[in-house]
């Protein structure tokens, strides 16, 4: 984040603005000045002179995308990714803000580490909002100091990757977080049911001779969490990378009962199925795993009908030596920042006819609401000058060798996609421009 240098003004002309937070979906011009949205108006009506102009003819102009689930791997695992490389990949994917998960080495369980993540020395090129651990070292036993973590800049708490299984600890987490209006993010997996499992349980796992994860391992935790959230007025429960139809039912029930329950899904879960796993390729291994076609259909329906609040990538870089090994021993997770928009347009918009405005909402206003990023996820006057400009019709092929991430563990290498980011602007400055 380079906010120190005085900003020049930038006029984005001729584009089609989609800003679901402001209910805008029309050709408009946009003037950015001093890191903020200065004016947004009908085409050719902005008279204020600008230092720089960007011709957005034929392009979609939206609030900067927000990814509320990424692993930047620092501190401790810089061989997989650094904050600098991870945020460069984010910029290339159109993301102007990312929320990073605390399962680093050490775990982000203190205010000092939350501050460390946000230091300019990390070299981030997009906004980084830390998510802190809910329990010390994410061991699921003693709670961290939510208040001091929040003051230091944490936007939520979670033990991502290590779900909070104990009812008592989860209850305490929700209670204390509710007093601070802090979202609690749960990686919903009953790990007592998934030991040794490396993919979804189904015909494919049976054929491949791999231990499978039942969908109930996810849905049972979501059901429990929704019940616990009900006990505290204002408790905010966010279900990370939801992957099963049954978990979705529990979220729907919570929303119907007016609970503050939100959820996200990943591009790989709305794109791929467990039966797409080929040749024991470790780049198809992630947690939650790729699921059945009925799960995928339920997710796509929920993306369309508004049940799902955000698309989040769960960008999880791993080195080659952690992936090019026996499938059951390979690390869980794939990179995802640079393919998210292309997959969403290709599969959700073109294949399943979900309106572009809804997809933009899932990348902007939706995630901004989940973690309360004020003045982001919108292009309203006065908002942060974070803007994503993309070409919804551009056909391209993802080449993992050209990734900005330090890792290349993606199942989408060679995927033909439609919809490409043309420019990413953070605080009024370009952090990515398509070559």
């Amino acid at each position, binding site marked *: 984040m380079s906010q120190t240098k005085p900003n020049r003004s930038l006029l984005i002309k001729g584009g089609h603005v989609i800003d679901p937070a402001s209910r805008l979906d029309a050709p408009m011009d946009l003037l950015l000045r001093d890191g903020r949205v200065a004016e947004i108006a009908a085409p050719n009506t902005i008279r204020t002179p600008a230092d720089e102009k960007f011709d957005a003819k034929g392009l979609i102009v939206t609030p900067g995308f927000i990814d509320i689930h990424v692993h930047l791997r620092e501190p401790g695992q810089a061989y997989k990714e650094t904050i600098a490389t991870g945020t460069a990949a984010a910029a290339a994917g159109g993301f102007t803000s990312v929320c990073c998960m605390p399962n680093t080495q050490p775990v982000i369980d203190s205010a000092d580490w939350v501050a460390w993540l946000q230091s300019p020395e990390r070299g981030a090129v997009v906004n980084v909002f830390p998510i802190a651990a809910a329990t010390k070292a994410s061991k699921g036993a003693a709670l961290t100091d939510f208040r001091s973590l929040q003051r230091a800049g944490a936007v939520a708490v979670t033990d991502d990757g290590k779900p909070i299984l104990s009812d008592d600890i989860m209850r305490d987490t929700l209670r204390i977080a509710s007093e601070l209006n802090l979202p609690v993010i749960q990686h919903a997996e009953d790990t007592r049911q998934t030991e040794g499992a490396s993919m979804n349980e*189904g*015909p494919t796992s*049976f*054929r*491949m001779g791999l231990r499978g994860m039942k969908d109930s391992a996810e849905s049972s935790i979501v059901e429990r969490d929704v019940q616990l959230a009900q006990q505290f007025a204002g408790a905010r429960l966010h279900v990370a990378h939801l992957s099963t139809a049954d978990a979705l039912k529990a979220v729907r029930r919570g929303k119907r009962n007016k609970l503050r329950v939100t959820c996200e899904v990943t591009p790989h879960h709305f794109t791929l199925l467990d039966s797409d796993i080929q*040749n*024991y390729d470790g780049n198809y291994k992630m947690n939650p795993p790729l699921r059945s076609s009925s799960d995928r259909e339920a997710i796509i329906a929920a993306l369309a009908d508004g049940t799902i609040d955000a698309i989040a990538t769960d960008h999880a870089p791993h080195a080659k*030596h952690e992936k090019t090994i*026996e499938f059951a021993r390979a690390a869980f997770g794939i990179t995802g920042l640079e393919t998210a928009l292309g997959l969403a347009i290709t599969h959700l918009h073109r294949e399943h006819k979900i309106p572009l405005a809804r997809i933009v909402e899932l990348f902007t206003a939706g995630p901004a609401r989940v973690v309360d990023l004020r003045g982001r996820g919108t292009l309203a006057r006065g908002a942060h000058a974070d803007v994503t400009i993309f070409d919804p019709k551009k056909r391209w092929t993802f080449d993992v060798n050209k990734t900005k991430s330090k890792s290349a563990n993606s199942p989408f290498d060679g995927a033909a996609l439609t919809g490409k980011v043309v420019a990413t602007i953070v605080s009024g400055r370009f952090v990515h421009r398509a070559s």
Partner: protein
Amino acid sequence: MTKPARGSLLGIENLTPAEISAYLQLARKMNPQKPKPLLKGKRVFLLFYEASTRTRSSFEVAAKSMGAMTTLVLSSGSSIEKGESLLDTGYTLRAVGADVIVIRHPEAGAPLLMAQHLDIPVINAGDGMHEHPTQALLDAYTILKHKKTIKGLKIAIVGDIYHSRVARSAVYLLTKFGAHITLCGPPEFLPDLATTLAPGLQITRSVEEAVHGVDVIYVLRVQKERLGGQALSVNDYIARYQMNAARVRLAKKDAIVMHPGPVIRGMEFTWDVADCPQSVIVEEVRNGVPVRMGILAKALGKAK
């Protein structure tokens, strides 16, 4: 990553019936008593990450009797213990001069991974719960010594199907040739999902129903430790699924009784059934040699 080298044998699932028949034909041409030195000067590496008696010794005998040199590498006592990766072990054996690698590994997909990164053929000698293709071939070879054709045979496979690579390979092979297969076992060992392995599979929880009128009874090993933690006790298992003389009598008179070994007498078999006249268990082991001779000859391009 490349395609596995010609002659690799990684599983039955993706073989055509013609390819399987070619392997069986080749085995019939092999004479373990008077072997031809087809593999003279070749180096066969046996890379075993798991215990094995039958598979390992029959591959070794098959290779040596055709004039190959064999080298056995076990996970214990090698650099694998020091944390060397599967691929690095493969590159090492290739550098030492391996012409073919026969691998047994506790994880599904390990032989494929190695084959995708080496330019020499890789033979799967059993990978996790996935496949055991050479066992399925020797079983088909054995069945065809007793039955004219596999098509139309009624076959019961009884025991721990979930954990069994032998069961998966056998199901693929036998259904490709038109056998009617009934799988039998408790839900812990035989989830309903098992019917998705191949078209036309039947499932039953009653061993009497499974073996009634069949041509082949194929019994799988049951590991006591796998019953631990399951709803089923060892005594329950024995009472409901153990193959005893009375149950064998429900099959056709000329039915054969098979088992891939190692047999745990008193568990999946009573003592007498393992040795009964219908039992072909020892013959299966014997047939492993010509079948694996053919597989090695083909792998090394020496099959005519």
